[in-house]
């Protein structure tokens, strides 16, 4: 290609720049450096592949794209975090495998992916926008030789908008760089109608894009008799079996769906080895009592049973406390003085609280008492609860009125025994062990103690700053 082939520059056509053609990337690089050195700023280079060092040669300033990617990436990450926080722990908290509602490790994969997504999309779109893309037509494409920019030729363009641009001097500068040729590039004045099919296709695509939202909108307002479509049948119908229901034999040989604990294991939190807390019994006292009762046995029984046998009997007796005392059993005769009031021997109840006594515990106790006990025992504990009063009004004769909690027999009871009563009930009173957790049962016992003391309190028991308010009454 030589200069002779340059198209005529007619007065009608407007020159938008000069295009120099080179045959190697090195020549292009050198040319770009020279042109920049000559003070031109609005230049553009075209090559079939990226050339290392080109940005610098052309004086292209570093792009702000990384900042955009960082910002949008961080936004994506925070959106992921917040989305999980909102969905899993605020809007619809669901317990997943015993983890806290918001636990960081679980949210990281989503946040991580959204960070990448945000940064990636921002980079891609930002690149397009900053480059002024997509650009459907470029006057350069009308130059037949220019197409070789995608295979084996390298072009440098100086734009006419450059303040230093002046046709003749600029052309001679470019020519001094030993190009294969220099061409002027004119603005594209030819009418360039959009192909006819573009508009209808765009409209059609726009319409089709409306179909899914329209279907969703319709589904949201219409009712249907048919069962819904199962996208994930195995999630809609889980293979879990109901408790106590039979399971197929291929699952478990004994067909029990609720599995018993593995022999020799204790479920977490079910060991309950602290007798004082869980049963209200003092283990040390208990063994002491047991030993003294055993020595008693030894004295009375001449045959002198082996220690193990005595132990076993003891356990058997504890297991079945309701069994009627057997007068022939030397054990019972030995225990007789201890079980003077009741038919059965009393265990060694704890006399102090096995957990810290705090204001919170007391408040909790009052609340639980009002819920669970006051219906029968009354808010003050004298047995005047609504249920009881109503039952007495009906005069059916079957109602056993609840005991006042202020009678001597209850006042004398150690806290362990009260705890036992709350847990298992006593005589005609039902137990509340199934409804109340251990701490709440102790809280109630603590509140009963407070109720009892309130009947026998002296002014010294009241904090001095509250005494005034009492006197007003």
């Amino acid at each position, binding site marked *: 290609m030589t200069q002779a082939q340059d198209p005529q520059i007619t007065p009608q056509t407007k020159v938008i720049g000069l295009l120099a053609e080179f045959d190697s990337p090195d020549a292009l690089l050198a040319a770009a450096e020279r042109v920049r050195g000559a003070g031109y700023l609005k230049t553009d280079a075209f090559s079939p592949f990226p050339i*290392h*060092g080109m*940005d610098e040669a052309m004086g292209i300033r570093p792009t702000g794209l990384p900042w955009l990617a960082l910002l949008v990436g961080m936004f994506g990450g925070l959106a992921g975090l917040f989305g999980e926080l909102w969905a899993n722990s605020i809007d619809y908290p669901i317990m997943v495998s015993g*983890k806290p509602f918001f636990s960081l*490790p679980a949210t990281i994969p989503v946040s991580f992916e959204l960070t990448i997504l945000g940064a990636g999309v921002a980079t891609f779109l930002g690149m397009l926008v900053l480059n002024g893309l997509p650009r459907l037509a470029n006057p350069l494409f009308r130059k037949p030789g220019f197409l070789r920019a995608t295979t084996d030729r390298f072009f440098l363009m100086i734009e006419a908008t450059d303040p230093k641009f002046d046709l003749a001097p600029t052309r001679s500068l470019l020519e001094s760089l030993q190009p294969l040729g220099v061409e002027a590039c004119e603005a594209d004045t030819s009418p360039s109608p959009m192909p006819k099919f573009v508009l209808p296709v765009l409209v059609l695509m726009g319409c089709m894009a409306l179909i899914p939202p329209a279907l969703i909108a319709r589904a949201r307002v219409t009712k249907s008799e048919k069962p819904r479509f199962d996208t994930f049948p195995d999630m809609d119908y889980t293979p879990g079996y109901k408790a106590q229901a039979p399971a197929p034999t291929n699952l478990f040989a004994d067909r029990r769906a609720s599995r018993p604990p593995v022999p020799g294991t204790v479920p977490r939190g079910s060991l309950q080895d602290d007798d004082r807390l869980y049963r209200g019994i003092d283990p040390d006292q208990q063994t002491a009592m047991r030993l003294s009762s055993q020595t008693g046995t030894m004295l009375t029984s001449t045959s002198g049973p082996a220690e193990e046998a005595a132990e076993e009997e003891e356990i058997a007796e504890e297991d079945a406390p309701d069994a009627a005392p057997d007068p022939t059993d030397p054990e019972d005769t030995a225990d007789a003085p201890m079980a003077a009031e009741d038919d059965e021997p009393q265990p060694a109840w704890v006399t102090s609280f096995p957990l810290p006594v705090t204001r919170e515990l007391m408040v909790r106790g009052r609340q639980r008492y009002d819920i669970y006990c006051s219906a029968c025992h009354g808010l003050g504990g004298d047995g005047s609860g609504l249920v009881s009063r109503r039952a007495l009004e009906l005069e059916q004769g079957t109602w056993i009125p609840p005991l006042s909690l202020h009678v001597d027999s209850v006042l004398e009871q150690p806290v362990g025994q009260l705890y036992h009563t709350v847990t298992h009930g006593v005589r005609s009173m039902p137990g509340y062990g199934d409804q109340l957790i251990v701490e709440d049962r102790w809280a109630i016992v603590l509140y009963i103690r407070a109720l009892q003391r309130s009947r026998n309190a002296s002014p010294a028991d009241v904090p001095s700053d509250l005494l005034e308010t009492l006197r007003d009454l």
Partner: protein
Amino acid sequence: MTAKPHAELRDLYHFGEERQRAVRLLGAIGVVGLLLGVIFSLFEAEGLRRFAFTYLVSYTYFLSLGLGALCLVLVSHLTRAGWNVVWRRLAEILGATLPCWALMFLPILGFLLFGGGMLFHWNDPEIVRNDPLIQEKVPYLNAGFFTVRAAIYLAVWAWLGSYYYRNSRLQDRSGDKELTLRMQKWSGPALILYGFTVTFASFDWMMSLDAHWFSTIFGIYFFGGAVMGAIAALILAAQFLQHRGLLKESITVEHYHDLGKLLFGFVFFWGYIAFSQYMLIWYANIPEETQWFLVRQTGGWLGISLILLVGHFLLPFAGLMSRHVRRNRMLLAGWSAWLLVMHWLDLYWLIMPQLSKGAGPSFGLVDLCCLIGLGCLYASTVLWATGDHALIAVRDPRLAESLAFKNL
């Protein structure tokens, strides 16, 4: 091509006389350090056991630098990379330490064969007898098979490391492009071998310290840290050489920039793998698996875990993100040194908690002597492997490309 081998190189690229003296001096310090470590360990509560563990930490640390460098060499052949020819020789030299480092495995083998369960508790017949879980693993975890496997790993690495170094040096003399083609051809199979051996070696030497625990991602975790460490070591080595007036013009800020990108990438890769390992175990919450992390989350080890999270991942991730940092020699060197320390801490965190359950982290004279001892020995082997050969692949067909390399 006309025979102008060093046409573009206007650099000094040979070590001077002082190299040989350094080899001997460092070797001597190394041996003394190790001996002192053994002696000091006799006064410690855990005795020789402490030395065995700390030796394993330092050994795998320096081993990992060689392994990471070997991986970089293999990958650059696999991808026919041109930009990195200027520093590939340095990586080849680190990889060429692997034959020597195979010999340094002997003490560990000694602890195994003569120390019973001193290092690997699965090798204690008393423990195995009472431990049904380990009994199941005995077909794999036994001293004999362990030794055979270790011999295979070490032989593979030693062979790969010296193969690539040897051929590259041959090219220095002949300029034969066939050598490049041959090295490229074998890089694929070599990487497969590399992947298997590194994975199983990390299983054997580090994971089996707690024979109950298992994590299939463990191998790649070790690998990620190793490559990161190797890149950091290469950056420091290049700067060290340039500081001494060698390779001054060959390695430019453009190469450092790309090394920095790799370093940044592997910092994140390590974090990604570490988190993947942690999250799966955390989520499944199976005691068999969580106990390994439990030890590292209680007492002083929690501190080390947090330091790793921040220092091995979050800080360098943020710190290396900007290209200005990666193009600044001082900052890049600073981060490289920091990450080398973190990489050591990572291995320490993998291995040491197994020394005595429940005891917190401790670093005493024994550890210091062992680290310095093996470190000096390692430096000595590096300098020895360097020999009087060129520090750059002078007639690599892609050298010109690499010298002219520029980031966009």
